């Protein structure tokens, strides 16, 4: 058994005994959770298990009542706000695709690019050849090169999801949190999204929250099942889905 100190020293994201309650409802109940560098991790769990709350805490939207949240061993995320945490290198995709609808696909990516985000930095920003190349590259990755000049509002639901993933890539995060990326996607889009996420996970850590068991199977990675604010089971998809507690709480008989 590893000591806690050892687990911490090689973790990218480290949560220990994190609890938070809203009006008496315990959304997270001493949750502990570790993500290692370069890991792709799937999280499943019934509604109200605390999946989104966990992401809120990691990204600084919600402060925990107690517990430790560390990024890269020593950065205490509970003391930072959303903008700080995004600049540290944690990107987040929302459950509902959130892109800038009145901007073009290109502009969406340009805004997301990891550059000076200050008032004057953006006022006098000029698109450099490097930045241009980087945007082209991302367009290629998310397969939207042909739609670069279209308004994001005119994209299909699945394409918006992909654009948002592209924006996260532009942010060059070390850790990507992805909330239900395939909700509302066709089967073909779902399969392609699994390929895309695996591709992305080659160079950074990714945490995916998803309900779609087929998609999780496609990913073929370590799965964490949450229920009632804490970890119920952790391991391979076969191991987790055969766990009697998981079957009872989530998968159903």
């Amino acid at each position, binding site marked *: 058994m590893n000591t806690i100190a050892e687990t911490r020293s090689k973790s990218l994201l480290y949560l220990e005994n994190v609890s938070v309650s809203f009006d008496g409802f315990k959304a997270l109940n001493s949750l502990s959770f570790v993500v290692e560098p370069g890991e792709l991790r799937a999280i499943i769990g019934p509604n109200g298990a605390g999946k989104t709350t966990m992401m809120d805490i990691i990204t600084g939207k919600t402060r925990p009542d107690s517990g430790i949240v560390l990024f890269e061993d020593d950065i205490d995320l509970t003391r930072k706000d959303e*903008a700080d945490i995004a600049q540290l290198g944690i990107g987040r995709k929302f459950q509902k695709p959130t892109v800038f609808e009145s*901007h073009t696909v290109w502009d969406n990516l340009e805004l997301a690019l990891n550059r000076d*985000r200050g008032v004057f930095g953006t006022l006098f920003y000029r698109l450099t050849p490097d930045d241009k190349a980087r945007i082209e590259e991302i367009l290629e990755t998310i397969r939207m090169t042909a739609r670069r000049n279209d308004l994001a509002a005119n994209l299909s639901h699945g394409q918006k999801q992909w654009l948002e993933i592209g924006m996260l890539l532009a942010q060059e995060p070390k850790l990507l949190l992805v909330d239900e990326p395939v909700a509302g996607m066709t089967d073909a889009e779902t399969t392609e999204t699994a390929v895309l996420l695996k591709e992305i996970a080659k160079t950074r850590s990714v945490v995916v929250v998803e309900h779609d068991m087929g998609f999780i199977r496609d990913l073929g990675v370590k799965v964490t099942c949450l229920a009632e604010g804490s970890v119920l089971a952790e391991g391979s998809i076969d191991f987790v889905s055969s766990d009697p507690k998981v079957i009872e709480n989530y998968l159903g008989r």
Partner: protein
Amino acid sequence: MSGFVFRALEGRIVIALAIILGVAAVVPALNLLTPPDSTFHIPTYAMSLMGKYLCYALLALALDLVWGYCGILSLGHGAFFALGGYAMGMYLMRQIGPRGVYGNPVLPDFMVFLNYKELPWFWHGFDWFAFAMLMVLVVPGLLAFIFGWFAFRSRVNGVYLSIITQAMTYALLLAFFRNDMGFGGNNGLTDFKDILGFSVQADGTRAVLFAVSAIMLALCLLLASAIVRSKFGKVLVGVRDAESRVRFLGFRVENIKLFTFVVSAMMAGIAGALFVPQVGIINPGEFAPANSIEVVVWTAVGGRGTLIGPIIGALLVNAGKSFFTGAFPEIWLFALGGLFIAVTLFLPRGIVGAIQHGYKARQALKAAAEAEKGRGSAETVAQAAQAAE
């Protein structure tokens, strides 16, 4: 830096700038150089009236920057306008010197009347034009900064923010009504004589004031255009449409809003400062909440988020107001209310917004037709090729 300005010069902005600058030259020329009986003569009162509209247009432009692009519906922009006006009014009061009714060389008339023994500390420096002009920017800017600092940091949004901006201007209205505030109470500041040594009544001075109003409008339009066309401007629209996305991309939304709010408040201050010498008075009535709401109406009528729209909206609504209050004084307010309802129902994008939208839709239709034709001709070529075989 040059890129920043160059980007601002988008087609229709250039046209608008040319028109505004043309007006800045032509109207004063027609006033000063044509004989009063000529058909082309513009009487001084009409020129000053138009100058007043230009100040309103600048105020609407300022509001568009925060409302149209950043999504902050300020119902208190009249406060920044009035503060700029008071700064200019204080300079003009100090220029009266011993020519007041009471003949006091230092104290303005209302202070003599209220038994002031000496000039309040905050009146010092206002006899100096450069200082007063600085205050035209600093006072509204500072108020916007303090207000915005607290509001945006604590993430007050939407209708709640609108309500507190309204409360802000109302609080200032009540404060400025008080005689012991030292700003002339109910009557405000008036009886102005000179500006920079020139009589404010003289045709020449009025002509210059008109031209300066138009030029300031053009400069602010250029600045606003440069802001909204920069990457910062795209972030602004992002804040309007999906604030949390902007935040999770690592931008400090509160700083973005604060900067825009302060720039906008300063523009409103400039508008107020140019307004005062042309109408000859500034009083607490300018802080009235209804004034700030009217600015919102102008902006909505012209088309928010278009920069040019609010300018057109302010000019049209105010010209209409002048006409209707003369022709049908009793129905003017109904006309204004009806206008706002009609615009909301039938022209939700405003005049310029609707034109822009229609143009874009036609462009898209044309592009689609073109593509269709392209495919059609490809087919004919294919058929021809087949026939040749």
